[in-house]
């Protein structure tokens, strides 16, 4: 009886995973990449697999594709894809299924296409590999696909090399490639994580539209509950290689039963639409006043007239009061990171003034700016790349202040105190960066910046590389530090939801200019510029809530 139910379930599902356990090589932090997981992807549905880094979601996808690295092996379980058993199938059989019955799109569209082949060649290759059609029919099918994924001028696009395309366009090409043979199942491994929020919204819409039009089944891997709310029919939540909860999207999002799911959902930053409670220590005086700041990048030589000119920052002006946080929000290429580098004088500006504490530092030579440098500190995006792997945490924290004249024993005492303050134990002092997790490293990065007792902190995408639960902790830490020390902050981010958590006011940048500047309530509830409206509308997972709210008001 039970067996027959199971058999019919397997038939109904486009993809069914039963009791899958995948072993990791010995000496890893756990024995199994995934352990005894089971789920079904029903035909014509979108199943979201959600989990934080290391949850085993990508290993699951690669197992289904038969693309596991040699060192990792399946020890038990079964996978049926459109009725065909995957586990134990020969490499030839698996190769025949890939691209035809199941296709996959990846996270980083910039590296997922061969740089030496044209877009057209890469699409027709799928058809060639499976012996479909003639040369002419493959070409027309590729053009059809390029049109289907909404790329402009397919004829031109066919002959284009990937480097000419934007990230969103490349991801569309990946989707076109994946759809070439109309597979039963599409696996999307974080396909929008590397994209800007407006591009992400477009790609999500494209995937959903195509899925509906073709009745395709999609397995969508993500770490973002916003994305889940946007497109999922059902959800599988994974933690450390186990499935901790699964069910319909509605059920999991609204009434999660497992504590891990509850924690994850609670950690997702939401647009508050409420302004932040003013800091007790926030003063009225202005610590930073920027007027007409501009920077243009020039590359290539002037001698032979092949110079490229890219205006990165154009006529940017704003003021920041002491003890407050200004969010600078924009998509990639908006100039937000360039602005950060100009403010800390890692780069010289072309025009404009930067009044720090009443003094114009924009034109100050390095020798005169050096004594001021401790007062303006930066927290970097990548906690893995921004700490020297050969220095101990103690060396990382003390080298700067000692160079600026602090006696070593004093620096050491302060470093130990700060480590405790940012939530690490004092034993961290003598250890090396690789011994810490991403979140811990970002705490170290914050402690490093605080060693100088700065008056202005510039955080450039400081939480973007972190899992949501860690993200929430770091944001809380930054908020707490500001309340205690009264430091002013500039928080550069691409994520409006994160900005809404921590900022007193927000400046939205587009193509080097600030297009809107105001408190979060204005930016999120009553945006003045069309671009801000577009940005806010594109935030995944927010629309259904506001739509619900609108419906309730009717």
């Amino acid at each position, binding site marked *: 009886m039970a067996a027959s139910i199971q058999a019919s379930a397997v038939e109904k599902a486009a993809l069914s995973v039963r009791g899958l356990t995948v072993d990791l090589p010995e000496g890893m932090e756990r024995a199994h990449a995934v352990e005894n997981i089971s789920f079904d992807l029903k035909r014509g549905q979108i199943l979201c697999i959600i989990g934080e880094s290391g949850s085993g979601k990508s290993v699951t996808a690669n197992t289904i594709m038969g693309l596991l690295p040699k060192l990792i092996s399946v020890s038990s379980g079964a996978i049926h894809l459109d009725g065909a058993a995957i586990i134990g199938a020969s490499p030839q059989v698996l190769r*025949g299924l890939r*691209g035809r019955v199941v*296709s996959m799109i990846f996270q980083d569209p910039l590296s*997922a296409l*061969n740089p030496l082949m044209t877009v057209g060649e890469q699409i027709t*290759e799928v058809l060639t590999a499976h012996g479909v059609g003639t040369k002419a029919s493959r070409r027309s099918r590729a053009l059809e696909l390029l049109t289907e994924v909404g790329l402009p001028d397919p004829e031109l696009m066919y002959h284009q*090399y990937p480097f*000419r395309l934007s990230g969103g366009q490349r991801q569309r090409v990946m989707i076109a490639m994946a759809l070439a043979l109309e597979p039963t199942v599409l696996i999307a491994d974080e396909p929008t994580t590397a994209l800007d929020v407006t591009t992400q919204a477009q790609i999500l819409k494209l995937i959903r539209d195509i899925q509906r039009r073709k009745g395709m089944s999609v397995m969508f891997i993500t770490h973002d509950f916003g994305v889940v709310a946007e497109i999922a029919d059902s959800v599988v939540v994974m933690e450390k290689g186990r499935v901790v909860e699964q069910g319909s999207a509605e059920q999991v999002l609204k009434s999660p039963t497992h504590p891990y799911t509850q924690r994850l959902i609670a950690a997702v930053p939401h647009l508050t639409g409420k302004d932040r409670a003013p800091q007790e220590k926030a003063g009225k005086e202005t610590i930073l006043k920027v007027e007409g700041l501009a920077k243009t990048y020039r590359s290539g030589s002037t001698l032979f007239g*092949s110079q490229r000119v890219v205006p990165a920052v154009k006529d940017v002006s704003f003021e920041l009061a002491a003890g407050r946080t200004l969010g600078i929000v924009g998509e990639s290429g908006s100039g937000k990171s360039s602005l950060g580098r100009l403010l800390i004088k890692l780069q010289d500006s072309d025009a404009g003034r930067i009044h720090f504490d009443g003094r114009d530092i924009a034109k100050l030579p390095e020798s005169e700016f050096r004594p001021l440098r401790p007062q303006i500190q930066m927290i970097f995006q990548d906690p893995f790349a921004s700490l020297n792997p050969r220095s101990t945490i103690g060396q990382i924290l003390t080298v700067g202040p000692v160079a600026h004249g602090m006696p070593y024993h004093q620096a050491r005492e302060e470093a130990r105190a700060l480590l405790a303050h940012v939530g690490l134990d004092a034993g961290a002092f003598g250890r090396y960066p690789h011994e810490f997790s991403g979140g811990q490293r970002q705490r170290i990065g914050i402690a490093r910046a605080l060693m100088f007792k700065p008056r202005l902190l510039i955080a450039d995408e400081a939480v973007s590389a972190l899992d949501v639960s860690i993200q929430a902790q770091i944001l809380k830490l930054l908020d707490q530090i500001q309340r205690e020390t009264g430091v002013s902050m500039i928080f550069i981010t691409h994520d409006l939801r994160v900005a809404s958590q921590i900022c007193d006011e927000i400046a939205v940048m587009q193509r080097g200019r600030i297009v809107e500047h105001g408190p979060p309530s204005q930016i999120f509830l009553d945006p003045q510029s069309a671009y801000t409206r577009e940005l806010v509308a594109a935030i995944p997972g927010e629309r259904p809530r506001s739509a619900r709210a609108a419906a309730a008001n009717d």
Partner: protein
Amino acid sequence: MRGFLLNRLSQSLVLLLIVSVIGFVVLNLIPGGPLAQFGLDPSMTQDDLNRLKEQLGLNRPLWLQYLDWAWRLVQGDWGHSFRDGTPVLDVIGRHLVATLLLMGSSTVIAIAIGTWIGIRGATHRYSVFDYLATVGAMVALSIPTFWFGLVGIYVFSLRLGWLPAGNMYTIGDGSVLNHIHHLILPSIVLALVHVAIWSRYMRTATLDVISQDFVKTARAKGLSERRILMKHVVGNALLPMITLAGMQLPSVLTGALVTETVFTWPGMGRLFLDSLGYSDYPVVMGLLMFSAILVVLCNLIADIVVAIIDPRIRLS
């Protein structure tokens, strides 16, 4: 692309200028000078020497000698050999073909075998083949070329008698086959160290490319391993190797000089040693400039080939 070419060309010219100045100065810093060898000849009087100096223009200040030499060089007059008065270009020309033949054949061998070993080592990483290739490369790199030459002669010429021990052809037999027969041993000996270098770099480049996302994409498309290797991996792995080939040329040239001596090959290597021994400065300078131009040219060609193959450079 045109800007890129102009840029590279002007850089090359500056480089050649610097090489010529340094070469000229260093050569003239050697004590004794070009006429020192006549000092021991009892039949030469001081007057004879002075007259010779006057004739060859060696009594002028060094900078003037340089400018004169450089100006003539630009016009195509590379000077005349001190030894027998033949134009330098003719002297080089006579030895050029032999050297290019040796360099060319050994480069083809090195690239063909090195590429194959490198790719196979990367696709079968940590296999017996890979270990043998690694050990073999270390051996080839740590033993000097002349030793391989001597061992080669001992084994294949003296013991087995399969291959000739030296020279470019048998006197009285100028057939192509006879030339090839003579070419085999020296070109393989010269190629050994370059096979080692090339295979190591190719292995690393291939491993780099194999771990890239687009190779995973290719697998996800259902392509055969063979097609993935040929169409997606090899092309991308060879890109950096083209630049390497351009940079390896000077060391092939140096290696050729040693190999030529071991195999009494009538190329530029022996000409260079002989000319140095005779203090034949015009020929030495000519050879120096010729190799410099060759190296610069090959690097330029390598850059252009990369630019043609890589659309990111070609189209931007």
